[in-house]
């Protein structure tokens, strides 16, 4: 059965100590941050389901800058709600700039 998915895009800024964390780490950080919220996460289908997310261009390790990320949910989520719920779960150095 195909579950409908709703996407929300956000732009985040990586700075401070977070510049030492790789793209792989970023997936882990966001996954856990999202799992700490009560948001209806969309998981990839398959043997080992993961929180689905997709990334724009990755930043190099040790470099500060912005990244675009798309998150997926099983229900429609208002940008404001996502921001409110995700913000308290983000580690220092990762800033949500905008949600669309």
């Amino acid at each position: 059965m195909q579950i409908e998915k709703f996407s929300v895009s956000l732009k985040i800024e990586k700075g401070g100590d977070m510049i030492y964390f790789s793209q792989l780490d970023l997936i882990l950080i966001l996954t856990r941050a999202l799992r700490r919220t009560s948001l209806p996460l969309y998981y990839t289908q398959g043997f080992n389901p993961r929180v689905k997310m997709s990334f724009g261009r990755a930043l190099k390790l040790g470099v500060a800058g912005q990244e675009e990320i798309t998150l997926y949910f099983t229900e429609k989520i208002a940008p404001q709600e996502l921001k409110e719920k995700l913000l308290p779960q983000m580690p220092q150095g990762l800033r949500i700039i905008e949600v669309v």
Partner: protein
Amino acid sequence: MIDFSSIQKPQRYIGNEWNVVKKSHQGKIPICISYPDLYEIGMSNLGLRIIYGMFNEFEDVVCERVFLPGEDLSIKLADNRIKLFSLETKTALNEFEAVGFNLSCELNFINFLKILQLGGLALKAKERIETIVFAGGIANPEPVADFVDLFYLGEFEEGIGQFVEVFRKYKDKKARLEALSGLDGFYVPQFYNAAICSNKYKFDKLYNSAQFPLKRVYVKDLDKSYYPLNWLTPHTQIIHDRVPIEIARGCPNACVFCQATKLYKPYREKKVSTICNIAKNIYKNTGYENISLLSLSASDYSNIEELLDTLILEFKDKRVGLSLPSLRIDDSLGELYRKLLFLKKTSLTVALEATSDSLRAKLGKKIDVNKLFEAAKLIRSLNLRTIKLYLMLGFPEETDEDLLSIGAFLEKLQHDTGLSLNVSINIFVPKPFSLWEGVWMCPEEILEKKIKLVLSSLRRKRNLNISISQIKKSVLEAILSRADRNFSSVILKVFESCGNVTSENWPVWLAAMKECGVDYRNYLKSENDNYPWSFIEGSKISGLKNCEGR
């Protein structure tokens, strides 16, 4: 400060994990704790996390962490004369009032010295004027007695309050050590004289109020004991990247080779409701994907089915994987695994130790192998990919037939289950406080023959991965766990001559032992009651006889 961008895996040194505790040092007792290995390994240790959380619960204590830095950072620190620092506030180790180490793994002794040295601390206890280096998790403290000011024998949850109390009351090192040495579980080596008189270990106290004989201390109420709910969640992968939740401590079984029976006695359990509460809270605070139910033998947990049912109900929709790392094969195996299947993928691990029934009986290992084969069909249906199997060799009463039976056993198991097998074969080490602490360690030449015999019984097959532990490494492990105080000088020599090599470097150890006039075989022969650790309560004469004959 250091520019981490030129360092490999800088994530190890940032100290910004989710739920990290950062306090100002002002007016507080600063303590640093360590598991002397790399970050990814050290952060996987449960004891360290419990102690970190407990220390930080005290408002007037600040507890931080340090791990072994990678080779590149070590060199950089030494070249730039920067002292190794704590992760949280980047404070040099020698600025802490106490630095604590988990020394449960003997092969980390060199790492432990390296951390002291890089942190600007003198290696020998007597040469350190202010800082107290304390250690725990160790069965026989004697080989490192020269380096450690204070050991805790047993489970530190019971002693941590007293420890802090003494640190509040007294401000200088000597007064603190004197006060602590009078309390149960605390052992200050320099207050005791350890000598060998006519081949017997003799142990006297030099300071009047020090405890003697020494007691090991155990948590009385495990159910109510502290558990770190604000679980430190690294932003990068660590070796055991899951939350272990302790469901029981100790083991009701009495396998002869195992230290745990006596080191964590008696067998205690947490209530189902307590465990579920812990799991719920930790999940809420971390978002972790995997929870592992930790105990030495999960099948012995009295309400294992109720526990699993409750946890599955709680976590079914949250996509949390549950694992039970220590199930025994018995009737409930299939049922339990069927339950786990509702969650994420599971793996099956069987600590069999020996494939021959008669040898297993001698080892006190209560496993009915037939159950495993009976369950084979069920295992097939479980969607598992591999079975992990633990075996051991080098036992005193082991016969050639016992060893040769390994090949046929594995073949049958693979045939019946259709799964790939990961088999790890370890060498028996007579560990202090195990029932067989007095048994001799199989000499290297014989071990070599035994391993050849096992290998000859195996047919090379796909999906059969065998790893056998290295002989020299096991012998070294045996020496380091069984040696006396004299051995501190060998450890120091090895550290000085090649502080950068791994501790498995056998020729360096041999040379150091020769130079110090130590014959390591003395530590490995069979004994009755004359051990370097005899002064600690809990050591007993082994029941096994005739073990030297072979």
